[in-house]
């Protein structure tokens, strides 16, 4: 197993762990943390492909990850603000209880 596939495996594992947490945990805050983890796993993929790619001097992967980190920060701020707003309305962050839009 070469080193690139090692990084890709770590990234896939991080993505799956984040996805499992976001889909199965009952707390809304942990669902948001899981989504952050999935974004970070995608960033690791970008950096690994940039390092092992044929044109590392183009810096494309690095710039993309910088923008992705900025978007993740904005997403975390807005998501946590939404959770605080939902908590004020429902008095809980239990995802099983927040089902007003259930079809």
């Amino acid at each position, binding site marked *: 197993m070469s080193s690139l596939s090692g990084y890709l495996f*770590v990234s896939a594992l991080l993505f799956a762990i984040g996805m*499992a947490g976001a889909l199965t945990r*009952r707390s809304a805050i*942990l669902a948001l943390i899981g989504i952050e983890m999935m974004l970070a796993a995608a960033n690791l993929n970008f950096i690994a492909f940039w390092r092992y790619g044929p044109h590392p001097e183009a810096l494309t992967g690095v710039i993309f990850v910088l923008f992705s980190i900025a978007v993740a920060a904005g*997403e975390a701020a807005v998501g946590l603000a939404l959770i605080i707003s939902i908590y004020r309305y429902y008095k809980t962050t239990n995802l099983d209880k927040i089902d007003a839009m259930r079809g």
Partner: protein
Amino acid sequence: MSLAFTILAALTVAGALAAMSLRNLVHCVLALALGFAGLAALFLELDAQFVGLSLVIVYIGAVAILTVFAILLTKGADPAWPMLISSWTGNAVVAAAVFAVLAWAIWSSPASRRPLPARPEETVLQIGGALMGRYVLPLELIGLLLTAALIGAVIVAIEERQAPK
């Protein structure tokens, strides 16, 4: 496969697993910070110093602290309800299937057997030049997006007061 990579990968995955499986949410965020520290060290291992240090600043310095404040404001540190949602088995199967497909794709791809190329010349000067030259429009757009996110987060989270009669 070097020893440093093995240690850092184990640290990252252990932090992520602990962040998703601990009961107390504050412990989850601390484990998440550990996992992100391991991830930043993996970035440093891949010769991406600037991004690795920005990851430390943004994820550990801002996102983790913000999450702790959100836990504090929603009194959710150690909730009384069960950890998993009622329909968790099917969702866990979906996550495992996604990992299986990704692992199979990585394993069978010839691209993942590339040799390590020579160390690239990644300096902060070059990143700054690229951000001010070719990528200046996306940079401005990110600035606009962060401003909108800042104002939007404040407006969403602000307490609505009753209108005076």
